[in-house]
């Protein structure tokens, strides 16, 4: 599959009478985006705001972060099975609005995720302090069930992102990158001397606010399968989860998965990037066994030499991670696993809830229990009412001077397990 990614750099976002992109400035008609969000009758009202890097702004509770894209050539459309009709994506030409994001926020449950600070120490930990953010706060109709509200906000974010992406359809990209994968046979013939490496991506799939969707299918209900890594660039995988925001993959991360991008960088040079294998992280132990068995089987059938495995979340998924690692290694395929750590506030506790000698190559996204003080910022988009109830926070979180004492868990993307974060030992 060959996908041309056209990057259109957005330098500023402004509200205006008409939505358009001109000279790198995204003009947004508030009326138009409101109408797009309110297409779902479960949303009573929506407010839009703009947050720019460096501003004294805190966005919370964040549900998802989405990069606007548009499919200009090739099969299907962005977010297949969700917004666009079901069709296999990942080939042709796609444009992305770089440097900006649509951020959805809204109170779905009383303990809510996550925080994006646009300045201060918190901004150093979340990758979304560096993007121009169009934030939409959605209020549901009265008496709505959490399931329905979650779904309504999830879809509203995608609709708005697709609406903005469409504005770029006729533009000329500032930069174009080409991503091309081979078929199994082509790859073997073209790169006979390079190690055959795949990316195993584990998807969060446990329940309300803990779900992920693949071509619109609830990832709990999939068995492990193979994707061309270009498919994810067209939105084949979308996020429905945000609890413990530090190590959950917002849709933005699926679209821009750094493991996929880094493996493409090395494709044909040091490795033959064979494919992406996706699997889930269910609650039921027999599901874990089936999924890890199948993942290892696929690795063997594809004659892989190595895989990179990324986890999403903590605790329950630690078991899937170690099962995958152990079984794939047992098939003679080398593994590198990417995780994060819950090592206690002092960093002295065991980092993972499971381990095995086969997991001897591990990359960490950081310690999610690490404590951080977030100073009071001038403006809050969303509400601070829920800050006391997010993972890693409590009623004692909000201090007298207005600052917050929290664990890194609360910051969207702080310890991301695809490496889409700012923590580094460098």
């Amino acid at each position, binding site marked *: 599959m060959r996908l041309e990614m056209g990057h259109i750099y957005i330098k500023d976002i402004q509200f205006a009478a008409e939505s358009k992109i001109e000279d790198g400035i995204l003009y947004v008609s508030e009326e138009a985006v409101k109408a797009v969000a309110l297409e779902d009758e479960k949303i009573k009202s929506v407010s839009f705001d703009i947050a720019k890097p460096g501003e004294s702004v805190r966005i919370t509770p964040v549900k998802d972060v989405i990069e606007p894209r548009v499919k200009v050539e090739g099969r299907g459309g962005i977010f297949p099975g969700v917004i666009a009709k079901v069709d296999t994506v990942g080939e042709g030409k796609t444009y992305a609005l770089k440097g900006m994001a649509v951020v959805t926020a809204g109170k779905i*449950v*009383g*303990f809510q995720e996550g925080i994006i600070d646009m300045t201060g120490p918190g901004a150093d930990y979340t990758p979304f302090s560096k993007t121009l953010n169009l934030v939409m706060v959605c209020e549901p109709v009265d008496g709505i069930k*959490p*399931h329905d509200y979650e779904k309504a906000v999830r879809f509203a974010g995608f609709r708005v992102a697709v609406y903005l992406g469409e504005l770029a359809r006729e533009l000329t990209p500032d930069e174009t990158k080409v991503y091309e994968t081979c078929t199994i046979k082509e790859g073997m013939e073209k790169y006979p001397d390079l190690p055959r490496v795949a990316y195993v991506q584990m998807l*969060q*799939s*446990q*329940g*309300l*606010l*803990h779900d992920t969707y693949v071509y619109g299918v609830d990832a*709990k209900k999939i068995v492990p399968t193979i994707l061309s890594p270009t498919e994810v660039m067209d939105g084949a995988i979308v996020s429905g*989860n945000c*609890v*413990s925001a530090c190590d*959950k993959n917002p849709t933005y991360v699926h679209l821009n998965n750094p493991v996929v991008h880094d493996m493409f960088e090395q494709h044909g040079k040091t490795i033959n990037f064979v494919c992406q294998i996706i699997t889930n992280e*269910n*609650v*039921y*132990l*027999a*599901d*874990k066994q089936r999924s890890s068995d199948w993942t290892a089987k696929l690795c063997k059938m594809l004659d892989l030499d190595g895989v990179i495995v990324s986890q999403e*979340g*903590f*605790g*329950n998924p*630690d*078991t899937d991670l170690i099962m995958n690692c152990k079984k794939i290694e047992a098939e003679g395929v080398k593994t590198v696993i990417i995780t994060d750590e*819950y*090592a*206690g*506030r002092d960093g002295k*506790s*065991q980092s993972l*809830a*499971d381990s095995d000698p086969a997991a001897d190559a591990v990359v960490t996204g950081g310690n999610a*229990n690490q404590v951080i003080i977030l100073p009071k910022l001038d403006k809050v988009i969303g509400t601070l009412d829920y800050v*006391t*109830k997010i*993972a*890693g926070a*409590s*009623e*004692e979180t909000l201090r007298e001077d207005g600052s917050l004492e929290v664990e890194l*868990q609360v910051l969207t993307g702080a310890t991301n397990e695809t490496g889409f974060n700012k923590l580094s030992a460098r």
Partner: protein
Amino acid sequence: MKKNYMIITNNPLVPRKLNDEYTVAYMDISYEDVLKEVRNRIHEGHRLLSHPLSGSVKPNETPYKSVMITERREAVDEESLMIIENAIQACRKFVFKSDKYKPEVYEDFQIIDWTLLESAVASADAW
């Protein structure tokens, strides 16, 4: 017909959601004590069916936990034992704050715990 598994829980929503086909052992105890209760039953020969650390709301943050185990007693299952011991260990690295939320939040914690269990019930009932 009775299901061939049982649910150990401290979430009052669970017995309200499941009819009498299901065996629910509801106890008004702490999150950690639910895990310890499960450990006791594993020592008696029950096997774990759902992961005790399900969900991203961490131990000691949510007060609620529901775990599914087999109804039948067999030889002690080593893997179940290892998972439950690790889960009890993991509990202790989180600062206890399950009692520090406003009252309305507890209902949401109950809903989340229920949806996590519900996904295990869906898988178990597919057999």
